[in-house]
């Protein structure tokens, strides 16, 4: 029974996707909402089953390591429930939004396949199963990216697909190396880096972080993200940015904080510490770069996508801090998980707001919009909640998780008094200010500013409203009851990690969020945000366009072009050389042929044997050359 629940989490969306091609078109909307809704409730049901202490797992019949293994535990299920919830909300939204798009059948087919993949990732019990679903997400998301069939979409799709495939291959290689070294691919701590682990394991871990990092949008592997997310239809952007990049985060947590964490009795945590430090800095770089890029965007969807990069940086920093602190890392990990949830909610909501605006105005440029609160009051309201959420205004969810993450980075810095980590904390603050500024700007330009264009009364459609309400309500819930959330959701999820239990209780569960110090920090960030906003608007700094050489993609294109140039050069040389050689052998051949023919009394024949002989001679010479080469070298 329980196993059926587990399997149907993955199979229900797949069946729904296939069914998409069978149901008549007029009930598509209801059908989609039903499939997404059922999936959500199945996941929820599974969550409660597991919470009541039931062990739910499924083992494919083929044994390790290539067999399929699923297992539902609290941490994965939290992600699963979150994913299916946001998916459900976005699906409802999309039933109205997709009226403006063509090719809905195909869109929803891949939409549901991606959901299946995402849920599969969260429920996998070993690395190869995880990889299977991870690749499913990668491939199934491609049609969503290129759905609009415009040149920018194809461009972005190509970059996305190539990077996703490369990331997937890095993962395979990483897993193979770990398997060679450790002989297991179990996700539950059996491959711990526990003193004296070999170079292969390190290499494997690095490759896996790279592979997951591509999907998560970790700097410098983020370059596909700001291109690919905005070009998709908005529901897909919301899910790409809100949920799908989290599969990368999920993978990193699984690999770093779970599979490679030594067990409690281990004395030596140095290796995890190093890995944690590296990830922390990657996270800090990601958050800063992301927010910097976001400030310079004019396209609102692109701006939101850049913020996704930035927010992923927050999460990575939490993960890194947790790994760095080892068994005392509960704050970092709790913060990372909390922020993952929050980001999914507010980024989903923000994309839906942007989508609703685009649906009614067909305009994505922030600077050409304005004054929309009058015509779209409901959307403006949800936009306000979500902006408060992401900017970290107290009483909204972003404030809670950012505060936890701030605690985590301070704890990490104070742990061994590493100076660089104090710098990281300052960058954290700066990023907070940047984020605040960015959303002040977003909200001001979109809703408050007086507009040159006048809009007729817009009727906000009901499905869009419902979708946005779901996410907005969740944002409020997660902001208003932080300690309840920590106790009900985060603590059970942390249970399966190697963490000191009393540390969880002392440092995480009993956190008081509304004290002067934490509020003061947020106040500084918000004031900083206002200052940057005014400066930026006055000086026009937001309109700066970075020179193209600063983009990572530019570098990639350069490398690609250089490769192609080199290849063309070499192949031209090769063909010229070959032509000359052929000519030469032909000449020799025809002369030899004359001699041969004079000897051949029969005359004629079906083929020019003379020619044939000399080609053969050439081949034999070539092979003899290789033989000599081989004998001398080997």
């Amino acid at each position, binding site marked *: 029974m329980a196993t059926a629940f587990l399997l149907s989490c993955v199979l229900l969306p797949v069946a729904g996707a296939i069914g998409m091609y069978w149901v008549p078109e007029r009930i598509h909307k209801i059908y989609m909402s039903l499939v997404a809704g059922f999936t959500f409730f199945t996941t929820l049901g599974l969550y409660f089953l597991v919470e009541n202490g039931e062990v739910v797992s499924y083992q494919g019949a083929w044994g390790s390591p290539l067999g399929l293994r699923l297992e539902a535990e609290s941490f994965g299920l939290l992600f699963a429930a979150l994913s299916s919830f946001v998916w459900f909300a976005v699906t409802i939204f999309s039933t109205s939004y997709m009226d403006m798009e063509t090719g809905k059948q195909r869109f929803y087919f891949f939409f549901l396949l991606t959901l299946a993949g995402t849920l599969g990732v969260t429920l996998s019990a070993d690395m190869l199963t995880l990889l299977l679903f991870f690749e499913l997400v990668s*491939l199934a998301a*491609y*049609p969503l990216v290129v759905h609009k*069939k415009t040149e920018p979409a*194809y461009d972005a799709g190509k970059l996305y697909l190539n990077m996703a495939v490369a990331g997937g291959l890095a993962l*395979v*290689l990483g897993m193979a190396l770990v398997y060679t070294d450790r002989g297991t691919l179990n996700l539950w701590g059996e491959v711990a880096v526990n003193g004296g682990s070999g170079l292969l394991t390190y290499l494997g871990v690095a490759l896996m972080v790279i592979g997951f990092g591509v999907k998560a949008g970790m700097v410098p592997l983020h370059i596909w993200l700001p291109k690919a997310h905005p070009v998709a239809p908005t529901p897909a952007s919301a899910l790409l940015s809100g949920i799908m990049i989290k599969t990368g985060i999920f993978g990193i947590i699984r690999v770093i904080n779970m599979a490679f964490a030594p067990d409690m009795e281990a004395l030596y945590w140095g290796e995890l510490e190093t890995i944690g430090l590296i990830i922390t800095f990657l996270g800090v770089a990601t958050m800063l770069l992301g927010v910097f890029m976001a400030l310079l965007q004019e396209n609102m969807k692109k701006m939101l996508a850049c913020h996704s990069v930035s927010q992923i940086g927050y999460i990575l920093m939490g993960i890194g801090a947790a790994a760095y602190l080892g068994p005392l890392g509960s704050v970092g990990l709790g913060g990372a998980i909390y922020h993952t949830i929050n980001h999914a909610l507010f980024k989903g909501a923000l994309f839906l707001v942007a989508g609703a605006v685009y649906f009614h105005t067909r305009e994505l440029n922030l600077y050409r919009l304005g004054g929309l609160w009058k015509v779209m009051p409901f959307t403006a309201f949800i936009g306000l909640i979500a902006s408060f959420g992401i900017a970290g205004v107290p009483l909204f969810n972003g404030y809670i998780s950012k505060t936890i993450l701030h605690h985590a980075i301070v704890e990490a810095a104070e742990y061994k008094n590493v100076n660089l980590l104090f710098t990281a904390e300052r960058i954290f603050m700066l990023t907070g200010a940047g984020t605040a500024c960015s959303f002040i700007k977003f909200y001001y330009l979109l809703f408050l500013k007086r507009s040159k264009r006048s809009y007729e009364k817009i009727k906000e459609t009901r499905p869009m409203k419902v979708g946005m309400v779901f996410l907005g309500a969740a944002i409020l819930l997660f902001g208003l009851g932080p300690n309840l959330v920590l106790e009900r959701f985060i603590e059970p999820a942390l249970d399966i990690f190697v963490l000191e239990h009393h540390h969880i209780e002392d440092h995480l569960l009993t956190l008081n969020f509304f004290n002067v110090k934490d509020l003061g920090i947020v106040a500084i960030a918000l004031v900083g945000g206002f200052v940057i906003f005014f400066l930026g608007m006055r000086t026009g700094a937001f309109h700066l366009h970075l020179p193209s050489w600063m983009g990572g993609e530019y570098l990639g294109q350069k490398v690609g072009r250089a490769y192609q140039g080199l290849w063309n050069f070499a*192949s031209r040389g090769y063909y010229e050389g070959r032509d000359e050689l052929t000519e030469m052998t032909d000449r020799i051949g025809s002369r030899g042929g004359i001699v041969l023919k004079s000897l051949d009394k029969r005359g004629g024949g079906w*083929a020019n044997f003379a020619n044939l002989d000399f080609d053969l001679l050439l*081949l034999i010479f070539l092979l003899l050359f290789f033989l000599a080469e081989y004998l001398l070298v080997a």
Partner: protein
Amino acid sequence: MILALCLLPFLGGFAILRSSEEKAGKISVIVTGLLVVIIGFILFFTKEGLEILLWPGLELSWQIDHLGKGFSFLVLPLWFLATIYARGYMEGQKARSFFFFYLITLGTVLGLALAGNLLTYYLFYELLTLTTYPLVIQTGTREARQAGKTYLIFSFAGAGFVLAGLFLLYGLTGSVAFVPGGFIGQGLIATHPFWAKTALFFLVAGFGVKGALIPIHFWLPGAMVAPTPVSALLHAVAVVKAGIFGLLRVSLYIFGPAALASIGIGGIKAWAALTILLGSMIALQQDKLKKRLAYSTIGQLSYIFLGVLLLNPAGLQAGLFHFLAHALLKITLFFCAGIITHETGCTKVSELDGIGLRLPRTMVAFALASIGLVGIPFTLGFISKWYFLSADPAWSWVFILSAFLNALYLFPVVTRAFFREGKFAPPLQWEASPAMLLPTLFLAGGALLLGIFFRLPLEFINTIQLTITN
């Protein structure tokens, strides 16, 4: 009994020759179907081999071992499907002789697969060139004749090398029989390192011609002028695999892992790795779909060889599994390419924008096979890749890099077909003649299923591997 296996297709071939031009295709499908069943039965129940003494110490011999059986059981159903496909493809053409040669090639391949020593293998290796040459020049154009000539030159030169290797080997050891795990002791290599090496080199170079090691692969891309059923079956499965099969026989049944390890095969490994990478890199540059697939074949074939040369069980499993995986996936890709050309006349990748609308099922099959070849879990290609990677970390980067290149040259075909707008309209009834479409879909589905139920072939491969390592 075992000789009957190889001779039956020749008899069947004469039945085709006696039919009229119009009915040749139909008859050959029936004959091939019957033969495949009969041969399959005989093969299943026959145990003992056959030896025909030429002179003392040297005989023509056939034996039934796991490896040969595996190869035979792989080609038999593929031959049947390819014949059905060929019937659809050659519809309305005078193709009696085509079907005749198509069928007798089956006999040759079976003779190769079940050959019990190198001499027999060599003879059938030569025969294979002769029976497939008419298929290459089937269209009769100037280009085809040119390609046919190149094919002959290269094949005979290769066979010449095999012969040289055979003589050397016989002179050194007095035996050319295939023995699981090899019969060349370390003593021989200690006493005659140079000649052992030379013999190995001659054999590798000789079989490497049909196995398409770069730079002795030239015949293969040229031979793509042949009708697609030929390219699909012969240049993706039978002929090239005959070369690779020869390499397997040489490295596992003549030299054996221990002897190879003491000879030192770093150079040959590097050669195979170079072929993998160069093949994929050249494929990336091709706009002609069939050429792209041809170079892809060149790269993929060396996977098998390199896997075996890693000289450990995982590498061997990987190589043998890829033997199967590549056969199924590449023949599917070629079938799809054939349907595309046959139905729309497009031969270039750049012309395929939006063709998914015209040929939806074909392109889905193409997509599945591409995904399989790149090695997304759990497809056939992934299983072999996984074993390749866990065989030897030092060489794993070659496979990963090549897989990435595979994605770079295969996925654009799929994305173009489905996600670009083109000039194609949806099909009215069948998108292609059922004789072509159904085998393609069957193979794509079969490859998908085998990727999920990979234990079945894997266990068979394990038995082969055990006979060699023990």
